[in-house]
């Protein structure tokens, strides 16, 4: 029951997190961040 509740909580969290990731992605892309371009970072797209 508790697990089910936690799973349900993750639905809005996942939705918000993925949308925030799009904003953060633009920020890192516009900065040309070293981390972003690092090969290790690009490996599992």
């Amino acid at each position, binding site marked *: 029951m508790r697990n089910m509740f936690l799973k349900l909580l993750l639905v809005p*969290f996942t939705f*918000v997190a993925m949308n925030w990731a799009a904003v953060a992605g633009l920020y890192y892309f516009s900065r040309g961040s070293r981390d972003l371009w690092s*090969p290790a970072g690009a490996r599992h797209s």
Partner: protein
Amino acid sequence: MAEAIFWIALGCTAYVYAGYPLLLLAWQWWDRRPVRKQYHEPSVSLVIAMHNERNHVQPKLQNCFELDYPPDKLQVIVSLDAPTDDTEALVREYAGKGVEVVCSSVHLGKAEALNSGVAIATGEIVLFADSRQMFDKRAVRELVANFADASVGAASGELVLLDEQGKETSDAAGAYWRYEKGLRGMESGIHSVPGATGAIYAIRRELFAPLAAGTILDDVVIPMRIVLAGKRVVFDSTARAYEVASRNANSEYERKIRTLAGNYQLVVQMPALLAPWRNRIFVQFISHKLGRLLVPYCLVALFVSNLFLLHGLYLVAMVGQMVWYSLAGAGWLASTRKPALPGGPSTETLNE
């Protein structure tokens, strides 16, 4: 003014997540183009790019040897990108078993590693794989069967996320991933998928052109080049790769940021994708890839405009938004607690 912004923002968000899938449903009913799949055995080069993957070398290469495909028609290439652990030594142990190794002494990135791997590929079909996902035994056979259809330039397999019990994940991220795969299936039925699954996708070798250094999303750039060249990129759910979903929400989130940053890079690198007269899947690309980049700003506009409209239906909308974001905050707090929640945002899932 606030009302107009509210409805435009709501309309855009609803289109991306609900309207577009409905459009695809109607579209494929009207104009479905099935792939004329036929089992045959062309030569295949399986290219795996690795950096520091010491824990995955043995299971991955063992998995390659167990595939249901004639060994004399399957060239396995591991392209090493200057590993600093003992990945290279582990891979070289397999050199005597038919695995071809190409190794860069300088850390150049995944794109360059793929370029180096494909440079020594001799197969008619090049199959790309990551080191962490295991192929189903029939995956290669199923995937290459799509190339019997001359209109197909690339074929993407399906990545199945598993939980620790080996069952397909049933959490939020798993549900999102299934939604995503549903979209891909419909897009494939109409013409092409705007991107492949990095863990398992194949192309005709003659359609490969070296990737620019620093390319983040090889699994989108390569397929979209193929679409621009006039060929189809199809999704085949019978060609499967499996991955145990990671529970580390932070690392997954970081990866997600890179994936979405890759979408911005894609538009800069390939402006032709924004030209409907050149991009045959312009609607799909805009709706699926760019729409996801637009939604967060729509959500902000929706919230801010709603602040100026606190009456009637708009008040209900405001309460709904407040509840939604409160739950999201609670989910975030819960996800930061140990032990890990049963499934935070996961690797390949969000906004693929």
